[in-house]
């Protein structure tokens, strides 16, 4: 018996060794820091002196914190606008690139490129150059005789430049849609054509329902991503959320609180609230999925 067990352990040892790097990362960089941050969220902690326990004080303080409310408003608007826009763009381009035309592989690669850059600093700087007072956009507008504004430094437009940036990075959703589109059997469309269904009817009657599992997956992933979005707002506003907090993403406010204002306990509490918000959103989408996601 014990010999058998030993043999089993021996057999599995390679497996555990393969898992070890990941496990080390998981505990060292995820689980332990999360437990620590939960503890800090219950304390007054400036990073340099030992934390002082304050119970739920940080969480209660958030309710009346103008910056938190402002950042929530900015973040919700960002998520609710950027995710649908991004998915619509992904689906539209996926549909256009579905057929095997000449050079379609090149186009697929080109449209996928922006999402490879992801939330990179270089792209955010590029964005800043496009939408500044003397940026590319205003130079184009000038050709048709319109005097543009400074899109990034104007409170009413700055958030929309970031939404556009997020929507532009639709590549990964597009690839998923594309793969899924190719799996829809062509007989369905043939049958529909014989029955006299037009292109639009085919799209709403066949393509969209069969795509819903992928739409569901993309919505969940992109919402989680959008809530955590940080770099573009950080670069474009120089780490301040300026102008007038119009680009003060929740994560940016969290960063300012923790690292600029040295209120790490409060920042930890902010992080946990973000986790709860994301969990609620994701949960709601999962619950609603029964109503609109069709698995065959």
């Amino acid at each position, binding site marked *: 018996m014990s010999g058998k067990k030993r043999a089993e352990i021996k057999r599995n040892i390679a497996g555990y060794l393969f898992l070890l790097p990941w496990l080390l990362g998981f505990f060292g960089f995820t689980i332990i820091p999360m437990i620590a941050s939960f503890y800090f969220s219950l304390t007054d902690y400036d990073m*340099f002196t030992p934390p002082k326990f304050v119970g739920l004080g940080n969480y209660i303080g958030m309710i009346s914190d103008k910056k938190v409310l402002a950042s929530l408003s900015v973040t919700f608007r960002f998520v609710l606008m950027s995710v649908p826009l991004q998915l619509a763009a992904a689906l539209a381009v996926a549909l256009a690139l579905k057929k095997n035309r000449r050079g379609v592989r090149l186009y697929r690669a080109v449209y996928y490129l922006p999402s490879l850059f992801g939330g990179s600093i270089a792209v955010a700087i590029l964005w800043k150059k496009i939408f500044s007072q003397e940026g590319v956009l205003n130079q184009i507008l000038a050709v048709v005789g319109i005097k543009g504004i400074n899109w990034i430094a104007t409170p009413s437009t700055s958030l929309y430049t970031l939404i556009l940036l997020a929507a532009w990075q639709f590549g990964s959703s597009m690839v998923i849609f594309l793969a899924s589109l190719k799996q829809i059997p062509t007989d369905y469309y043939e049958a529909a054509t014989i029955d006299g269904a037009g292109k639009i009817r085919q799209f709403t009657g066949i393509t969209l329902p069969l795509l819903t599992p992928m739409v569901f997956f993309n919505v969940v992933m992109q919402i989680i991503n959008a809530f955590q979005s940080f770099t573009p707002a950080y670069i474009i506003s120089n780490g301040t959320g300026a102008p007038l907090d119009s680009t003060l993403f929740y994560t940016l406010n969290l960063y300012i609180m923790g690292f600029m204002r040295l209120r790490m306990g409060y920042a930890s509490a902010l992080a946990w609230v973000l986790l709860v918000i994301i969990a609620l959103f994701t949960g709601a989408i999962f619950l609603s999925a029964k109503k609109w996601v069709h698995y065959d």
Partner: protein
Amino acid sequence: MKIQQVLATLLAALILAGCSAGSSGSPSSATQPPAQAASQAPEAANANTPAPAKDIEISFTWWGDTRRNEIYGAVCDDFEAANPGIKVIREPAAFGEYWDKLSTRIAGGNAPDVMGIHANFGSDLATRGVLADLQPYIDSGIFEVDGIEDSLIQSSRINGLLCILPQGITIECMYINQTLLDEVGIDLGIDYKNNNGTFTYASFLEAAKRFTEAAKAKGMDGVYFGAPGGSDNVASLQYWSRTTLGGIDLYKDEGGLGITEDALSKWFALHKELIDIGAAADAATSLEDASAPLEDKLFTRGKVLISSTSANQYSQYQAQMTDSELYLLPFPEAEDGSSYNALVASHFAISNQADDAHKEAAAKFLNHFFNRESAVSIFKLEQGVPINSKLADIVAKSLDPLSAYVIGFVNDYTAKGARFWVYPPAGSNEFTQLLSTAAQSVSYGQSAPEEAAKSLYSEAEAAFAKIN
């Protein structure tokens, strides 16, 4: 089957080895402090021992761009050549990420042994016990103070603790573009070319009006007079409060705000007026300008007459603006002619987290930095006039005319009473953030100066109360 298992195990072991090798090669290991050094000789501080018997590594962090990093690096080389037993691990960072990195490292208990410190962060660190007391090293003679004015040392104390030393002394002042002024064709009637006199806040506003009208009459579009420092700039507000309120500082000695809500409101109103009359750029333009690199700034491009920064950056500006003639002039003076010029500095500090051996080596490094001609000749005016006045004089002789002009400016106004004022108290960092929000709400026309002042005042009071 068996061979496969063996192979798999080997492969897994290889991956693991790869991971650990990768991590030990990462830059974070460069921070690697005391561990092995702690066991090395807790030898008593003896000033005259040339170098510790065993090798020691001290970590040194500062902020800067590539050009500045080379200068700091050269000073480190110079120090290492003179102190064979001590190696300086260099850890520069860009200003934007410097404070996050530093706070994180301090929180993790592995602060660099020697660190560049900015005034706004000094108090937050010093009052929390992060910075080492430097007095023992002066007492033991490791750090020589012969060439350094005692007032300089005394003014570097935070709550009585000597824990920072200025890397150099400079004056926060205004820059004026003479070429642009001549183009617009008005005369300001101030002898700033000879470091003699400046505006008052009233005459600044009046000149701003004249300049703006003259520029408009000449059809010069998009040209601005400028402002006496940004409305969101703490140093400018500090300066304004001393000058217009008869010497009252923004911060109280014991911490907290020293000025009233009404004063804050007047400060915002001054800047609002400058924007309203077209003398200063609108909020969006200013915001973009604030984060623009030096070569793209409105001032550098000859679109703004007056800008403000520290005097030691003069050479850099003049190098960018080869077609323009630039002069320095102090911030406006009071109506009765009194001036409240402030010396400013970036500092060095030694980490309190280091063990005695490292602290001592760090003190030797600072001594070399401040008191050896070879080091001072490399560093020159990088952070202002060197604090060792004998060496400053020697260096001055070998300087180019632009740097000599800066030294002259700083020395002239130091002789006229420029000095270090209240060191920003703990929590000033938080005030910086609050001021920026309030100033923006006024410049974007979202709130009136009084409203912004009111909410800024109450928020600042609350923030300071929390700390003290």
